């Protein structure tokens, strides 16, 4: 399909001038068709559906339904998890990256860290949940070791992997590496001459960080926070494999709704999906804006 249209385009083009312009656009037709059919239209369908009644008329009733205690509660939990894992991911990721890049550790550790981060940021979903269950579940390796070696009964302290805290802990496994991958080039962008210029002007190390380095890194930081937020908000498989459906985060609600209309209102599902898109969309917008600002400074 693709190749024939391209082949047909070429011989005609030099001959008839007025027809040249539209024919060039044929080259992006397959991509456009694919994107429309399998990306843009399905999403738009959902977005529009959020504003439609089953009969097809315009309504805001679906959106209003979002503010029911059950749904609002789910959004609240999702937001909490996402903010928590984004904040912790940023902080811990930054500390780790700074430690390896600037903390006087051997050079080889940097490559090892980056490679591992590349793998770990993709190690999400079901296998990750299994790995954590195998480690911190009731019969997990660390749970058993803590009991046998240190006499600490982990689950007696109230800790439970299948909980908000547990989910946060598991999510961090791919959030932290993502932060490391993004902040490492930013740290690289901190030029040595800035440190030296600051020193030559009388600034101590702390003053340099406070007045130059941190302000320069700040947009990267904030932007990555937004990205991590969006990342956590949309994650489904990990949560499902870990908590089943016991933790009511938004994607799980939506999942259940799609599977079996548990909300008794198909268009409410649209609204939930729309809410998700709005939140992740805003977060990504923030990320893009801050990233371009950061790139301008770190050039």
């Amino acid at each position, binding site marked *: 399909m693709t190749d024939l249209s391209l082949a047909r385009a070429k011989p005609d083009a030099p001959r008839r001038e007025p027809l040249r312009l539209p024919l060039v656009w044929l080259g992006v037709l397959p991509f456009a068709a694919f994107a429309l059919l399998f990306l843009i239209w399905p999403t738009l369908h959902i977005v529009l559906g959020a504003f439609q009644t089953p009969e097809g008329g315009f309504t805001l009733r679906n959106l209003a339904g979002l503010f029911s205690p059950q749904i609002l509660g789910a959004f609240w939990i999702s937001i909490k998890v996402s903010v928590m894992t984004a904040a912790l991911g940023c902080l811990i990721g930054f500390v780790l990256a700074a430690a390896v890049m600037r903390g006087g550790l051997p050079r080889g550790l940097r490559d090892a860290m980056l490679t591992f981060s590349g793998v770990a940021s993709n190690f999400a979903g079901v296998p990750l949940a299994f790995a954590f269950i195998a480690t911190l579940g009731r019969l997990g390796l660390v749970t058993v070791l803590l009991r046998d070696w240190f006499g600490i009964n982990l689950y007696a302290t109230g800790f439970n992997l299948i909980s908000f805290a547990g989910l946060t802990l598991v999510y961090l*496994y791919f959030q932290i590496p993502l932060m490391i991958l993004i902040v490492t080039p930013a740290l690289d962008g901190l030029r040595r001459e800035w440190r030296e210029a600051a020193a030559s002007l009388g600034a101590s190390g702390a003053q340099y960080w406070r007045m130059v380095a941190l302000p320069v890194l700040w947009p990267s930081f904030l932007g990555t926070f937004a990205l991590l937020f969006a990342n956590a908000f949309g994650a489904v498989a990990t949560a499902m494999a870990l908590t089943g459906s016991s933790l009511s985060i938004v994607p799980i609600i939506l999942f259940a709704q799609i599977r079996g209309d548990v909300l008794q209102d198909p268009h409410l599902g649209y609204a939930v999906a729309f809410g998700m898109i709005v939140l992740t969309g805003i977060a990504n917008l923030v990320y893009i804006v801050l990233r371009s600002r950061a790139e301008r400074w770190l050039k």
Partner: protein
Amino acid sequence: MIRSTRLWSWIAFALGAAYFLLPLAGMFEFSLRARRGEYSFQAYRNVLGDPQFLATFGYSVLMAGFTIVLGVLIVAPTAFWVRLKLPGLRPVIEFVTLLPLVIPPIVIVFGYIRLYNTSSWLPLTGSALGTDFLLMCGYATLSLPYMYRAVDTGLRTIDIRTLTEAAQSLGAGWITILGRLILPNVFVAVMSGAFLTFAIVIGEYVFAALLNRPAFGPYMVWMGSNKAYEPAALAVIAFSVTWACMALIQLATRFQKFTKASC
């Protein structure tokens, strides 16, 4: 470098390493516990002998293959064409390829189900084959950002304009140019995109579960709620596959550095 900074750095690194390595260790250790009282590979034997495992893993591998082919066929010519003829369109194309990262996959598959169900103009979900096709397109959509970025980076390093003009002056048509000239030169870039796609498809859950297809992701979840030790073995297998893909990507990019022909 002050002593204390280095000490704290080592502490931070050690804690980080512990956090990241313990789950891997736990996963591996747990998978060996199938036989009571002793370590064995029983869980792995159970998994590998399970016909469901072979069926779903095989299904996902096949899907990954088709997805890669579809992805390459859609992305490579488009990236090439846009670079050559429509450079003004590049930002638009890039934006579109980043959408799958912004829109949560669950929303996209929701859209598929609503749009292509049996009462729509394209009733894909009506048949198994149709749903398989839909799933493949969904996977291709998910891997679009990575595939496009890989190919685009590959194209950036070769001067396609000059190559194309040289080929045209020698009488080559578009198919020849694409197939014989462009694709071989961006082969390595395409390879990294392919491995990433493979890793994504193998572990994918949401699309497969909601479209009810027998893929590896839903199989793993089913095992998780039904068996004790086999899920850990599955996790080890899945992690190894991801790791292998990343390693192959590194290998491919390093290979490219040595065989880069200067243009």
